């Protein structure tokens, strides 16, 4: 066995899936496969595990819960969900609780799966090579947002209520800037760096979803909290894989959920500023189709150039 190979852990309740994936991956990785979730936790506790690929529906635990536990034990392991059916609840939980790298669907494309796992393994290998493990921010319920200087927050929503709620939730003196169109939002981001963008996915004229995807490429440090009354699992999967959306909140907004999401996002942004290498965890797939005007695309290009200068 080659000790330099990155370690990939596979878990699925169907052994044939494990056999098939092991054969696909074993030449490049040290593959560990099991149908037992407890075994997976033992592995991530006892040795470096670079990538975990988990099924969603399993008899004793669902994939999101397992990946969340793995995140607590081994935050540097890259987490991927491989599921036969993407029900909305699972996808929302995957974003909000699992903070997963990719949401993959069965049946999968062998080449694409190998590419995705290669990306994930590379990122995890770099992180494991560093000495200090990163700290994950956990915010207990009910705790007030701490009095520290936060990065500015941009609110892209045609409904002015959202910006009011965000202002109420953040400590006084925090900069909260409203924008009602994609173009104004990008013009603001061009002027200064924002830690978080809270965006309503539904817009009367603009492709907010496409803009979020491209914004992640242009300014990866800005964390996106998507919110919408529109609840579509398929769309959300794209937002994970192509936009690395940090949280998804259903509308009407719950103040407590929004408060926690803002706090987690702002703290993550702070970590990313101090440990820029962790940005790689936010690498996204190229989006499939985006309908944005050339002016908007110009903004995105300039934002990308500035982000490179800052980095």
């Amino acid at each position, binding site marked *: 066995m080659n000790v330099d190979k990155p370690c990939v852990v596979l878990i*699925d*309740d*169907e052994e*044939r*899936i494990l*056999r*098939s*994936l092991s*054969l*696909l991956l074993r030449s490049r990785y040290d593959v560990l496969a099991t149908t037992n979730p407890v075994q997976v936790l033992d592995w991530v506790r006892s040795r470096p595990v670079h990538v975990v690929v988990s099924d969603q*529906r399993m*008899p*004793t635990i669902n994939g999101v819960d397992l990946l969340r536990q793995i995140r607590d034990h081994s935050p540097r392991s890259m987490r991927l969900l*491989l*599921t*036969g*059916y993407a*029900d909305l609840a699972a996808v929302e939980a995957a974003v909000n609780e699992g903070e997963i790298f990719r949401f993959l*669907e*069965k*049946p*999968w494309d*062998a080449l694409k799966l190998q590419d995705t796992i290669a990306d994930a393994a590379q990122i995890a290998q770099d992180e494991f090579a560093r000495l200090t493990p990163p700290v994950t921010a956990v915010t207990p319920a009910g705790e007030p947002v701490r009095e520290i200087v936060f990065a500015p927050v941009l609110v892209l929503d045609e409904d002015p209520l959202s910006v009011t709620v965000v202002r109420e939730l953040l400590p006084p003196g925090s900069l909260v800037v409203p924008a009602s169109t994609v173009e104004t939002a990008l013009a603001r981001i061009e002027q200064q760096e924002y830690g978080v963008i809270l965006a309503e996915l539904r817009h009367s004229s603009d492709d907010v979803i496409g803009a979020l995807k491209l914004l992640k490429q242009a300014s990866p440090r800005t964390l996106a909290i998507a919110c919408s009354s529109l609840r579509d699992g398929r769309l959300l999967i794209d937002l994970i894989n192509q936009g690395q959306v940090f949280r998804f909140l259903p509308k009407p907004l719950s103040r407590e959920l929004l408060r926690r999401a803002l706090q987690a996002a702002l703290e993550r942004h702070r970590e990313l500023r101090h440990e820029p290498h962790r940005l790689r965890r936010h690498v996204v797939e190229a989006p499939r189709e985006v309908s944005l005007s050339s002016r908007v695309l110009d903004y995105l290009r300039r934002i990308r150039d500035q982000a490179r200068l800052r980095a």
Partner: protein
Amino acid sequence: MNLPSPRVVPDPPAVAAADALATLLLPVTPLTPQCSVAEAGERFLEAANAKLLSLPVVDGGRVLGCVTRHELMLRVYMQPYGRELHGRRAVTTLMDLRPLSLSIDSSIEAAGQLIGRSLRQPITEDFVVLDTDGHYAGMGVVLDVLRALELRVGQHAQELEAAYRRLKASQHRLVQSEKLATLGQLVAGLAHEINTPLGYVQNNLAMTRDLLPGAAELAGAGAALLDATLDGDAQDWQQRAERLSAARAAFDPSLFGDLSALLDDTLHGVAQIADLVGNLKDFSRVDAAHSEAVDLHGLIDAALRIAGHILKQRNVQVQCRYGELAPLRCAPAQINQVLLNLISNAAQSIDHEQGMIMIRTQMLGGYALVAVQDNGRGIAPDVLPRIFEPFFTTKPVGQGTGLGLSICQQIVQAHGGRIAATSTPNSGTRFVVALPLSTAAAKVPA
């Protein structure tokens, strides 16, 4: 004068409730108190009054009474010497002092009610219509009121029928949406059940395809070496031996073992998909209206396979204790719907780790009995009597239409059977479906 023309029979749709009686008004010239009985008789013969059963006697706008044709005939014309005896007397001597009178602003319905209360059989009189000040306005004919009422009732019946049709359609839509909800649940489960084997089948085939060139090269190099060996050409042999050794380095023959395992899995996966699709076909058979003799156990097995994902997700064990059952005439797709509903309800009621569903069948008194028993949270005694009510649900808003069991009951009853439930909270629920074995009782709906 804004009174409508007396001879015009009002169009039914134009009849407005407020001035309804006014539309039936006949502006009859009344008799005077000075008028004689003989003169009154002649007035009845006038063409304009041919329709009237009674004529009013009016003095200065005040109605004194009415003389009826009936009274005149009975007391005067049909009596011997009646005309001679009574002809010259004042009409007031024959008059009914309390004639039926109605205000012009009363509705046709009110007029109908009053007429119904006060008229005797046979109908011998019409009624006086008074204006809002209580003065004589004209006469109304009882038959006109009855005819108008009849039209009105017909209209109401039409409205009722339309309302009934709308209700029926919305009920149908609800039943369809319940079916769609079941279907959605089914599709979610099936997508998962099919995508899992599809996942490894596709992956295995892709890997097999990628391994084939290496395997072909190994076989080709081996054959080439064999040829060289047989020909005894030493130089060729050396070259070909190197080719074979390179091919073996690229494709380890132990991979053949893997390939064979991959293909075994692939065949298994394809068989599993075929099995699922087969079940689905049974499940959604379109010949729902056709009653056919089927094996109930087969239907239960199919429903269990379709519900497999729910059962697996909740780690629920299923035990089947099948008794002897004669083939049953039923609409298989509908009975499947009932079984799937009962099984998924049972699974959903279990929120602990030792979930168990027991399905028993037996024949009893001309019925096939299917009992579905779970060890879930049970149904509270106050809820149990209501579970078959349409729209009754204990699930959160948006998660159930509350029609599932009501549709089950409808289907079972349409088959001439019965469905009942017993439950002990925190220990489990048991549903029993009884379906008649003879075809006589079953009339399967389309």
